[in-house]
């Protein structure tokens, strides 16, 4: 007896049990049985046809009208069966696409991964988590003899187009080594590349900075990026780190301004993406003050633990469903 015959037999049993007892258990078994039918790829019209056969056996005296009515139902179900099979083949196709996106996403990760540099004088922590499979946030570190450069960017638009755009940013930045020491010039060059190459609706926000490990100064410039925070240990205060400038990709001739901060031991530079500050909970938006409070609560910990703790708390507040990509990065001067 093959599986299909077995299933027909089983259907007859189930139906008889139900007709005799009409109890909940038999109904529940019927529900479970439908899963078996799907597994065996038995179409809806086949099920109706089995039903008719079983009824014919159980009630040989069925009226002609009843029989005709069942034939009519069978015709109706054939169209339904077609739609069902089409749905099945779309599901297969969807699974294929998903696995392709999976491959692309892991390729993006490999391409864009940035090692967090280690230097004695700085404690660095980074957390970057995509809301969907592909991350629209980007961060990058480059370590030189006497400096560390850091970029945090948010590509507007989500998913695959944003990911492709990000690869462009990475390679454009790699090809501008001489501007790495001058944040404003780097942004001006990058802006021209982006302006020429992206769709009019797309743009990029970026904060680019250079930390001089000799004199402990942080030089930075911003292109419409969500402001970070600067923590001054001496006064135990957080301030907004504004870096005014137009987003990349809007106007070819945009000029950027360079800012600087002097860091003493214990001072922190906190950079983020708008996924951190634009996070929405059932109670409304999370305000920047609340982010500061979260950082303050955790700031006795090493930098990596601070960013991890802030992320977990915000994730919890959003009921574990990120709406936007999240990137938080902390540079803390140690000695």
């Amino acid at each position, binding site marked *: 007896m093959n599986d299909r015959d077995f299933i027909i037999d089983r259907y007859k049993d189930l139906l008889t049990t139900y007709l005799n007892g009409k109890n909940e258990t038999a109904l529940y078994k019927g529900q479970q049985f439908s899963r078996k039918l799907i597994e065996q790829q038995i179409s809806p019209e086949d099920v109706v046809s089995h039903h008719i056969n079983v009824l014919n056996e159980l009630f040989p005296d069925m009226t002609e009208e009843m029989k005709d009515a069942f034939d009519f139902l069978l015709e109706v179900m054939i169209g339904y069966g077609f739609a069902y099979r089409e749905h099945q083949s779309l599901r297969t196709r969807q699974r294929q696409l998903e696995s392709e996106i999976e491959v692309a996403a892991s390729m993006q990760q490999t391409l864009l991964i940035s090692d967090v540099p280690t230097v004695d004088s700085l404690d660095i922590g980074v957390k970057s988590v995509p809301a969907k499979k592909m991350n629209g946030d980007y961060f990058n570190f480059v370590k030189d003899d006497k400096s560390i450069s850091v970029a945090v960017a*948010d590509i507007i*638009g*989500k998913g695959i187009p944003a990911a492709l755009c990000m690869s462009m940013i990475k390679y454009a930045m790699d090809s501008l080594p001489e501007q790495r020491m001058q944040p404003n010039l780097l942004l001006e060059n990058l802006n021209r590349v982006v302006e020429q190459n992206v*769709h009019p*609706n797309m743009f990029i926000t970026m904060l680019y900075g250079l930390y001089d490990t000799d004199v402990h100064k942080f030089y930075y410039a911003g292109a419409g*990026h969500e402001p970070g925070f600067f923590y001054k240990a001496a006064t135990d205060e957080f301030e907004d780190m504004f870096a005014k400038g137009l987003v990349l*990709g809007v106007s070819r001739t945009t000029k950027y301004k360079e800012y600087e901060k002097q860091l003493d031991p214990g001072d922190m530079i906190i950079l983020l993406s*708008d996924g951190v500050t634009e996070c929405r909970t059932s109670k409304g938006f999370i305000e920047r003050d609340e982010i500061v409070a979260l950082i303050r609560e955790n700031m006795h910990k090493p930098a990596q633990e601070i960013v991890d703790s802030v992320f977990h708390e915000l994730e919890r507040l959003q009921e574990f469903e990120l709406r936007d990509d999240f990137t938080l990065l902390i540079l803390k001067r140690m000695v």
Partner: protein
Amino acid sequence: MNLQIRHEETNGVHYLTLAGEVDAYTAPKLKEMLVPLTEVKNTQIVIDLANIDYMDSTGLGIFVGALKSTKKNDGTLKLRGMTERVKRLFEITGLTEVMDIDNEVKGEAR
């Protein structure tokens, strides 16, 4: 959430009044309405955002696209009546510097 768009034309000026949210879900609707207007030569467009309580960066992208397109076609694009939250988004991204934005509320003395 949803986005409602009202479109009126008075003396050759197109007035769009928006209400609701401009985000990744509603942005295509706005784009469909706005882009064809911006592609006509010398068009004047005024967009009222007083009833927009949320806009995300995808929404902002539509306005950036519209700005580029109006400039290319010698038209003008004016935004007005932003709420604080929306205004902050335009300020941080530096777009207040390149766009024609009028946030004065009618009748309010300043």
